[in-house]
């Protein structure tokens, strides 16, 4: 700041334009950086790898689940249902408040607030607001069944094995 700042009125038009252009440039740089920073920070705090078990996992060969099996994998929070040569994975997280539901004779029931579901996960009683979601099941190239909890599919869609 070598020269004292002159009052604005005395400045010539040229200087004014130059100043204006420079201000715009700086403003562009500053706000651009600000926006990128904000975006980066949002991306930063969204984890790309989680520390729990992954949402996409394989559960073994189809032979491990004989026809008619209803196996609840509590650590994965999913129930593997085999009906003949059809396999599906139904969530065992209660749609009410997130308790783990257990397999019962008539389907599923929740120990927390008494929600009940039928064998396909449709609500038959209690406070549960929605049916249990079904997850995508696919046959991995190595011949094992793979469940992807990130992809929900329509109820009743089985995988033929």
């Amino acid at each position, binding site marked *: *700041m070598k020269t*004292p*700042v002159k009052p*604005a009125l005395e400045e010539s038009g040229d200087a004014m334009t130059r100043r204006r252009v420079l201000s715009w440039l700086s403003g562009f740089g*500053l706000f651009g950086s600000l926006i990128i920073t904000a975006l*980066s*920070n949002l*991306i*930063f*705090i*969204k*984890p*790309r*790898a989680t520390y729990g078990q992954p949402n996409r996992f394989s559960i073994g060969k189809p032979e491990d689940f004989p026809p008619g099996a209803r196996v609840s994998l509590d650590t994965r929070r999913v129930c593997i249902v085999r009906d003949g040569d059809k396999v599906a994975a139904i969530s065992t997280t209660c749609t009410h408040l997130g308790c783990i539901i257990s397999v019962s004779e008539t389907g599923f029931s929740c120990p927390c607030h008494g929600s009940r579901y039928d064998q396909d996960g449709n609500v038959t009683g209690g406070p549960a607001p929605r049916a249990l979601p079904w997850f995508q099941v696919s046959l991995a190239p190595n011949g094992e069944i793979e469940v992807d909890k990130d992809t929900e599919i329509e109820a009743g869609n089985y995988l033929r094995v």
Partner: protein
Amino acid sequence: MSNQTTTSPWKTLVALPENIWRSIFRNPLPSSDLGRASTSFTNFFLHLHPVKVHRNSLKATFTLGLGLISFFLFFILVVTGILLMFYYVPSTTQAYDRMLDLRGTVAFGIFLRNMHRWAAHGMVAAVFLHMCRVFLTGSYKPPREFNWVLGMLLLLVTLFMSFTGYLLPWDQLAFWAITVGTSIASYAPLVGKDVKFILLGDSTVGQEALLRFYVLHVAVLPAVLSLLVAIHFWRIRKDGGLSRPAEEDALPADAPAPVEVISGPAVVMATSAAAAAAAQPVLQKRQYGIQGLVRGPFTKVGNVPDRSVFAWPNLFMAELVVFLITVAGVLLVSLLFNAPLEEPVNVMHPPNPAKAPWYFLGLQEQVSYSAFWGGVGIPTIEVLLLLIVPYIDRKIVGVGRWFAQERLLANFLFLTFVIVNVILIIVGTFFRGPNWEFVSPW
């Protein structure tokens, strides 16, 4: 709103953005001196500054912007530090893994860590250089003695802050640097052992030490540092702005004498009721708003032609430039160099040589000659001497000029101290190999 009964809802709606804007920023972009003054006063961030600053304070060659750089580095450290806290776990089993994750999976993780690391090193250097600037321009002389003391405390806190952060990655570098560093502390007479034990929470560096250093690093020390910084800044204004040579204060020949409403610092401090009462009539006689243009430690009024300029936009522009240069520097360094991450901690296998962080290598070098004198005696004497310098060297000469002739002796002594320490650090960093034996870096 209630008294404007005539306004139609439509007009209210139209005026809404304007009203919201005006409620936040009370002044339009200023075009007059009054406007410039108001801008400073009515903005929370800007009102920390004086309305007018002396031209000398804006001279880049005088301040080198070192104080500001230190502060902005601290700001960057706070921001990046908080972000890193999202992924860091202060646990001996997880800390290192989290470092690997920052490098591998977390978006921008490595970059933020680089920024934090390099800004921390930069801050230690900037604070130290700032101290050198203040000394070599004689700026610690009355009335700025206490601010010098505050500055020294800030230097110590900064060092401690950097030191505590050094442990957190939990790699070999961290572990052994802290082992060495805390061992240096244990040489202090009487309390040394206790200090080390309290610092580590255990007899050796382990989980307890990691947790303690973490708490110190992310909570205790930043709070202390922020408080000290606030006081440091406040004192700059209360001590009459940055130092400058006496001749800079001389008024232009044709200037009318300034009207002093109150003389003496009594009212500025305004602690004694009597002083306040005495000042009362004067204040009542001629009423000035708080916007009375402030210069020096005393309130003065009148459009006095002096060598000061308005803070808006001159000072703010300068600060913005320094801020951006600092940010750009940190960004560039972080882009080019990755922060070191050595092997995971191996308690049984110290690297040879085990070195403290670079700013303590001077100390470590001294310790290699004498544990007590090098590690505790001499540093304590140095710090104490530096703390009391402004109370010994009270003659107000050579203030506000670099390497003033009148201060040859003081500057010479200080430079000797600086150069000796820098040489020790260089020797410790580059010339010491396994078993702390002398090696050539070439």
